[in-house]
């Protein structure tokens, strides 16, 4: 399953970091952060609960870049 979330982040480099962090999160098959459109596309692994996974994604993103936000 794929979903798109609006995000807020300051710089392209930070967006890249968010992408890395999201990809490493458990339950995420693939994630792409689009800095210019301020969007994050997340592809979930089968059977993953998107709400708990996204909470982890946000936590991991905050770890690498605390000035970021994911609107769910």
């Amino acid at each position, binding site marked *: 399953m794929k979903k*798109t979330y609006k995000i807020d982040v*300051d*710089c*392209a*480099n930070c967006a*890249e*970091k968010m992408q890395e962090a999201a990809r490493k999160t458990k339950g995420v098959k693939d994630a*792409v952060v*689009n*800095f*210019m*459109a*301020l*969007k994050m*596309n997340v592809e979930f692994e089968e059977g993953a609960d998107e709400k708990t996974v996204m909470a982890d994604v946000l936590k991991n993103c905050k*770890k*690498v870049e*605390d*000035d970021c936000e994911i609107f769910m």
Partner: protein
Amino acid sequence: MSKKQKKSLIKILVAGALALAVNLIPYEGLLEGTPEIAVKIIKAVLNLITYLIVGYETIKKAVRGIMKKQVFDEHFLMAVATVGAFALGEYSEAVAVMLFYQIGELFESYAVGKSRRNISNLMDIRPDYANVLENGELVKKDPDEVAIGSLIKILPGEKVPIDGIITEGNSTLDTSALTGESVPREALEGDEIISGCINLTGVITVKTTKEFGESTVSKILELVENASSRKSKSEAFISKFAKVYTPIVCYAALALAILPPIVLMIMGRDANWGEWIYRALSFLVISCPCALVISIPLSFFGGIGGASREGVLVKGSNYLEALANVKYVVFDKTGTLTKGVFKVTDAVPMKDWVEKSELIRMAAGAEVYSSHPIALSLIDACDVKPSQEDTKDVKEIPGHGLEAVVKGDKIAAGNAKLMKSMNLSVPDISEAGTIVHVAKNGEYVGYVIISDEIKEGSAEGIDGLKKTGVSKSVMLTGDARKAADAVAKKLGITEYHAELLPEDKVNKVEELLSNKGENEILAFVGDGINDAPVLSRADVGIAMGAMGSDAAIEAADVVLMDDDPRKISKAIRIARKCMRIVYENIWLAIGIKVACLILSALGIANMWIAIFADVGVMVLAVLNAIRALNVKRV
């Protein structure tokens, strides 16, 4: 400006004013009699306050980065450089570096926000509501909640929220947001209309045929919003580059600060630590990679956005990059280069008492009850439409044609077989197309040629491709060789392959793909109807006429909103302009930086040049990147 930007602007202004004041105060005059060391301390404290106003956030971020083991980023570079400069007593330089760095950041975020808004404005096609007719009353609803088959009313000035068919009313539609075409289209009762257009003149009632999520407008928005997620090679290169670059630069700076003085000490000369550290700090300031990191995606964003304003939707920056290198363009004929609609192209009377128009009218008269495309094209070609009342006793002969009595005359219209069965001989015909022979009262009178019509823009489109430097245009078609040859000749296409089945088209494209050079890109242009496999097999699949065909939107990499073949060369030119800007920025940024890095290592460039190499280059690169959005006259 956003709140964050305003806050940062105020900080910059306050700190800027303070910095000027701090450096212009005539300390010696004011503080006469105070010891020199006290003056120094006062100066340092005032500078420190200014520095913290503008640089506190950056320092905080750098410290947090270190704590999170995300050490090497631009905040770190800036923090080390400025703190170091402070330690060396270069107060005003430290403040200036931080101040200009913040100005650069503000400019960058403003420019990005601006082009973001620019593009969302131009894609402002998302309808907010639909007026649904329920029990004779109009109810405003979220388009998402409207079921298929609902009746919606669209007033002049409103957007068409969902695809559907007009059941009542006539109007004109502005499709410019979708196609870039500024001439409004007519929409009459019974016409299918697509969402995203703006209703201009009349009130229309529309029966919806799709859900909002499946409607054209949703598909397009999805495509545009997800476009830059697919990254190009140059973008991937830059983000990889930035990852290894910053650590390398930091270690290089460290080496520059430590090694030369040690060598000098060993050689028994003055180590001059301060000078080397200063050089290393300038080195750090110069090396900040922000110019590259921001300007490359910004260029692609602008290029894709600008293209969509022209009705060319590109699904990702990788495809924009590929589009710029297109060397071969393979066309599907029907529906792409031709209209896919039959039309009478010529009539050849064989008797001197028959005129062309008379010949067509005879054939049309016989076919007047038929709804076959050939019959329709015949009727369409008459200046005076034949009346059904004049035609009697129609006899259809399957596989041959038909016979009828028109105004008392016995007319036969059909193929050569029909004429043969009547013992009439027909001439050899070399023209391509469908031939309708006509006989009147048992006498052969001539034939009408009906063929698929070439699109207005096709010849110009092919010519445009040649001018843009595409080395070869190839046409593929399932049609007969004669018909293909005629079209190819008219359009100036040298290579064509006719009588192909759909799977033959894939094979042909495979063949072309294996024969081309590695960096040459092959694009396939089709109308999305039954050529989806070929669209996905080509390096770049270009689908035409997305107005109405969502299969095309799915299968292709590039979608032309209208079906104008001239847009292909335009798309290539837009892509080329964008790539040119991308390369300009890469070379500009890396070139100036490398030059300044060398100069600073040699001690020729001071901190002020370093600031230019960082902020100045970034501003230039961003300004250059913004040009990619402007594609009107490409």
